[in-house]
């Protein structure tokens, strides 16, 4: 207990210091939001493995590290060349770059976006967007009960604010690139708010990368609001250093007839926890929540998802696939709630894990809780190895065992990757997955 108190103290004093640096710079509502979240953070404890929701993921190793919190960016610390590999052709001129959680305008390029599209730092919300930001920021990610979210909310500064106004369409993908690089262990708290207006169409790539193998901690929170009839594709690519800690919450709130698709990819990190929660808050909502995690060595990745069907006539589809090698561990916990009255719900969930080594462990727990009649729901989970019959089939065509394993593993991931609509994201992932597994394939 005593230990926990000092660990929290480190973050709490950083919060206090941060509040002072922001004095007089932000709208009153933002100061109040931070202050409410700060009080909750003070009152809450970090979760332990005694907490059912954190049973498999012990955050003590993260809290033990005396991370420094930075609120100022050293200009020119990161060169364009260093981040080039992490950029995407589809968003050359619609890219926002953050270094250790801080907005880096000199590495960003937003020149290709139509004027009405708002993509800015949360520290510089333009006057005309103030109301939208106020209404949505902190409205979905609960800082009341969740310690990490409370902490993130208490120090909201240079986050990303994306607002697609009603009826707008963005052709380019908007890329929010979070780069972590530090000579000493740093904690940062990336924050993203995406508001997709009525009938808008957009896609957003949110990626977390690090050029080195540094130790650092990212505590990220993303809120997504999809208004009536909005179409939003959201790609979340976590390619952190394998010594990084990554705790993240993604909250999605959908209105009538909206269509939201999420691809959540997790490749890096030593301890990774991602909570994703989608609320289908009106009729005729479409939600696709797909995921892929590839872990090796001693990596630990924990995906907790909740899909909350609150109203009738909504469809949700979820496929999460995992590839585990070495002594890695992956957890999938997927809840689907179908609330009273949410008739004609169509909800399908599948989690599949491929174990490439005897030392890897997967835990999977799909949960369906249905309180409505006349619904179509299914869920399933598998944990398995490469099939002998599949390997033999490839061998019988002259493909050597190493290539056969690579091809089948690639195929397993491709099931998710091939659905991604952005070509350069797809290609990057194909390569990243194979590299990660030290496999090579000549695939087009």
């Amino acid at each position, binding site marked *: 207990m005593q230990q926990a108190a000092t660990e929290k103290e480190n973050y709490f004093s950083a919060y206090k210091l941060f509040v002072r640096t922001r004095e007089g710079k932000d709208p009153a509502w933002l100061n109040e939001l931070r202050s409410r979240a700060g009080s909750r953070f003070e009152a809450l404890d970090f979760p332990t493995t005694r907490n059912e929701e954190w049973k498999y993921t012990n955050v003590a190793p993260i809290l033990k590290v005396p991370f420094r919190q930075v609120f100022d960016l050293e200009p020119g610390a990161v060169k364009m060349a260093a981040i080039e590999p992490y950029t995407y052709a589809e968003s050359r001129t619609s890219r926002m770059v953050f270094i250790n959680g801080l907005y880096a305008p000199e590495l960003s390029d937003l020149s290709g976006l139509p004027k009405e599209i708002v993509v800015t730092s949360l520290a510089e919300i333009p006057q005309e967007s103030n109301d939208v930001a106020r209404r949505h920021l902190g409205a979905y990610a609960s800082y009341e009960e969740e310690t990490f979210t409370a902490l993130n909310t208490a120090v909201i500064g240079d986050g990303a604010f994306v607002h697609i106004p009603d009826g707008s369409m963005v052709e380019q993908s908007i890329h929010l690139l979070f780069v972590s690089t530090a000579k000493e262990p740093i904690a940062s708290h990336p924050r993203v708010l995406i508001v997709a207006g009525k009938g808008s169409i957009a896609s957003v790539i949110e990626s977390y990368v690090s050029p080195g193998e540094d130790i650092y901690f990212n505590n990220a929170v993303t809120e997504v609001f999809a208004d009536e009839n909005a179409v939003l594709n959201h790609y979340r690519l976590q390619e952190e250093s394998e010594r990084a800690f990554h705790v993240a919450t993604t909250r999605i709130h959908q209105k009538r007839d909206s269509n939201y698709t999420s691809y959540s990819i997790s490749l890096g990190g030593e301890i990774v926890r991602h909570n994703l929660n989608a609320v289908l808050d009106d009729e005729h909502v479409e939600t696709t929540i797909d995921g892929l995690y590839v872990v090796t060595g001693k990596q630990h990745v924990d995906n907790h998802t909740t899909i909350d069907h609150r109203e009738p006539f909504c469809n949700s589809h979820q496929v999460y696939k995992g590839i585990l090698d070495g002594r890695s561990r992956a957890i999938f916990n997927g809840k689907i709630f179908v609330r009273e009255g949410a008739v004609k719900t169509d909800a399908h969930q599948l989690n599949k894990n491929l174990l490439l080594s005897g030392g890897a462990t997967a835990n999977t727990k799909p949960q369906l809780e249905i309180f409505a009649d006349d619904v179509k729901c299914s869920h399933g989970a598998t944990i398995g190895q490469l099939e002998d019959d599949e390997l033999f*089939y490839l*061998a*019988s065509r002259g493909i050597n065992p190493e290539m056969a394993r690579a091809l089948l593993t690639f195929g397993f991931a491709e099931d998710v990757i091939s659905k991604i609509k952005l070509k350069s994201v797809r290609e990057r992932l194909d390569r990243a997955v194979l590299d990660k597994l030290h496999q090579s394939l000549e695939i087009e």
Partner: protein
Amino acid sequence: MLEIRNLHAVIDGSEILKGLNLTVNAGEIHAIMGPNGSGKSTLAKVLAGHPTYKVTEGEVIYEGRNLLELAPDERAREGVFLAFQYPIEIPGVSNANFLRMAYNEKAKHDGREELDPLEFDDLLKEKMKIVEMDSSFINRSVNEGFSGGEKKRNEILQMAVLEPKLAVLDETDSGLDIDALRVVANGVSTLANKDNAVILVTHYQRLLNYIEPNFVHVLYKGQIVKSGGKELAMELESKGYDWIKPAGAKA
């Protein structure tokens, strides 16, 4: 080309092949017929090198070499091809990628030039004509969501691309409608020549209306108990298998 002598093979402790003998020369088509469970697929898989079948006795000489010494992928590169009775689905791997990889592995082995995606595309289009396959199959995952007939055509397509020396077709005709049967049979006839050999495993003589075998063998309880010409297939069709008893077995 192939000489099987006194072959015994077991799976999960039970002996399935019990002293099988067979000789196949270049330019020949052999049909192997037999009731369900007689060991036809076992023979096919042993020749291809399936790891769960253990050879306990006998030998298999292929092109002057001990075939049983070679790993399954080596056998394939040496020109042995098995068209599976139940082809496997490989989600996420496109037919084009899969076939090109297989083609290039063999090309490398034979000292021929490997093909890049564009060059291979041309070759594949030619080969697809043989099996009357729609070009949409090129980019679909291997066998995924294919009908039974499409899977069998895909096996013949693979055979057409890889041009094996020894092709073993395990009931490629079973479950096919007349159209698909004609396509498969045409494919095999087109590919058979004086330098290669085909073993057709089947349990209907129907296929043999389209492909004329040089020899017909009856496989029964793990042994070849009778060999003959095409007329043997007719006889089996009319009389069934009951009149056949293993060589040396008491009547």
